[in-house]
């Protein structure tokens, strides 16, 4: 049992980090359109630090592992996504039991989304990662059957829905109206993480 849990933790961290790293170029391209073009490379640097410590992270209880991973993102990413994703994972780590049930996951995730809002002084509808994290929190709260399939769909729809939005926060907000017509890079990286976690839970990896 313990070995299984440790293996699952390892898979969750590894798959999530590798998924975003594999899409680093795409994220950079998205960020070049409306940001400063460093989202992919910055996330890659932070997540490579997480992967380098994978063995030790996987040995920790889930909450501690998430906090440690968040700290790597804070200290290695260097752009706005560092403190934002760092805050997300550190807050998530604070609220999670080692094997959380759906309700615990939902309440920890909601608290983490609120922490990201506070860190970025941002809210939903401003063309940021929150526009994916919000629907994911709602989906977790609602529960129901086929939860991972619903999570995937909500996250994918949420990313697409950032395209017409006017950016209110972050570097993209400097573009004003010109920020419309582009997908938000932070929303896309959040979706990639949600998909990776769903893949692991469904046993696809």
């Amino acid at each position, binding site marked *: 049992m313990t070995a299984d849990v440790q293996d699952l933790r390892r898979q969750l961290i590894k798959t999530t980090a590798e998924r975003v790293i594999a899409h680093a170029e795409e994220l950079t391209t998205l960020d070049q359109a409306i940001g*400063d073009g460093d989202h992919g490379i910055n996330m890659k640097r932070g997540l490579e630090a997480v992967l380098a410590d994978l063995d030790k992270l996987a040995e920790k209880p889930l909450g501690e592992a998430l906090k440690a991973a968040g700290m790597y993102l*804070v*200290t*290695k*990413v*260097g752009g*706005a996504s*560092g403190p934002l994703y760092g805050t997300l994972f550190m807050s998530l780590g604070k609220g999670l039991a080692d094997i959380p049930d759906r309700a615990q996951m939902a309440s920890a995730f909601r608290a983490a989304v609120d922490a990201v809002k506070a860190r970025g002084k941002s809210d939903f509808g401003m063309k940021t990662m929150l526009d994916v994290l919000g629907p994911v929190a709602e989906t977790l709260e609602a529960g129901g059957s086929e939860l991972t399939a619903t999570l995937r769909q909500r996250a994918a729809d949420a990313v697409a829905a950032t395209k017409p939005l006017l950016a209110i*926060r972050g570097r993209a907000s400097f573009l004003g109206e010109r920020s419309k017509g582009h997908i938000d890079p932070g929303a896309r990286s959040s979706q990639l993480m949600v998909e990776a976690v769903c893949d692991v839970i469904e046993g696809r990896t």
Partner: protein
Amino acid sequence: MSQFVGIVIVSHSPDVARGAAAMVRQMVGEEVPCAFTGGNPAGDLGTDPLKIRDAIESVWSEAGVAVFVDLGGAEMNAEMAVEMLDPARGKKVRICNAPVVEGAVIAASEAAGGSTLEQVCATAEELSP
């Protein structure tokens, strides 16, 4: 022992941070402790919360520290840096809502007169619309 409010300059660009600190030294003098940091952990444009924390520590006194940041990520990383400090110290650190170059110079001038942290930040923040 220096009891002037310390100044920390944080920019995405190491060159901007260094240049702004040089302006503070030349226009205000050496008596106000002033530290600067810029660049991400890889040395490219960005900011590094650990370096910001170290910069704050390097100028810290009981008088407190006023931090000046340029763009969004710098502000958030400065907040993370303050949270990494001993909480008693963190309470005496303010991230000022002011332009980084003008704010730092005005704040240092105010600090050189022996003003409190609140006065230093208020004077710098008058620059913001």
